[in-house]
């Protein structure tokens, strides 16, 4: 019954979008985390989405595929280096290192992820209604 697959598919969509929301939350929370060396500085993290193609390749499902999170990558944009000798975290040359998080980008990312999540919830909801109607058939 293909309608049950809608739950699986929208479920993968919801979990992928919640991973995206999670990384966004982590990025925004750490946007001002200062450190005293390049290696220890927080870098913006973003998930990489991919269609679940291995199922399609195995011949089970040709037409409908869910989403999977392939992994989470750290942004390689340059860090924000500031000269602040009076800062308690400053290194021996007087520099502090701030994360390469772009808060505005993260906010728009958050809105987009939240909307996509809601759309997936609505899909599941309407698939549920369709199934309910089918169960009521002939009554």
């Amino acid at each position, binding site marked *: 019954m293909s309608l049950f697959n809608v739950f699986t598919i929208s479920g993968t969509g919801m979990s992928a979008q919640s991973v995206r929301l999670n990384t966004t939350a982590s990025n925004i929370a750490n946007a001002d985390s200062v450190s005293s060396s390049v290696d220890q500085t927080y870098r913006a993290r973003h998930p990489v989405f991919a269609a679940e193609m291995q199922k399609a390749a195995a011949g089970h499902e040709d*037409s409908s595929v869910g*989403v999977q999170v392939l992994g989470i990558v750290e942004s390689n944009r340059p860090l924000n280096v500031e000269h602040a000798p009076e800062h308690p975290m400053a290194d021996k040359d007087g520099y502090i290192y701030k994360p390469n998080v772009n808060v505005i980008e993260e906010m728009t990312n958050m809105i987009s992820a939240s909307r996509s999540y809601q759309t997936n919830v609505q899909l599941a909801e309407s698939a549920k209604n369709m199934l309910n109607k089918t169960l009521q058939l002939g009554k």
Partner: protein
Amino acid sequence: MAINFEKALGIHPEALAVRAKRAEVIASNIANADTPGYKARDMDFKSALAQASQKQQSGMSRTHDKHFDVRTELNNNVQFRMPDQADTGDGNTVDAQVERNLYLENSMQYQASIQFLSGRIKGLKKAITGAG
């Protein structure tokens, strides 16, 4: 005229199956709305329905493992959608708004099929019991 349960329901069971499959295809488009490189897909309803009803007419049950499987296979009718916007930057051709509307439309058509089926079943019940 004898009551034939197989024909009494008309084309609606097949239409319902095609609608359900289409719901799944559109759901996977929406789930992959943010996946780079994903190409939106949809079904050709006309040919899918024609194929489904053809399969139903020649519907045979498999009584042996080596029999050919002639069950309704709707996957063949799934094709890629022509995108309105040729290049979105990441190779994704899903237009979330369009897909949502199509999903809604498909869901209403599914419920219309349910209504038709319901009517047919009520008709059968009436014929069997003789009471309204």
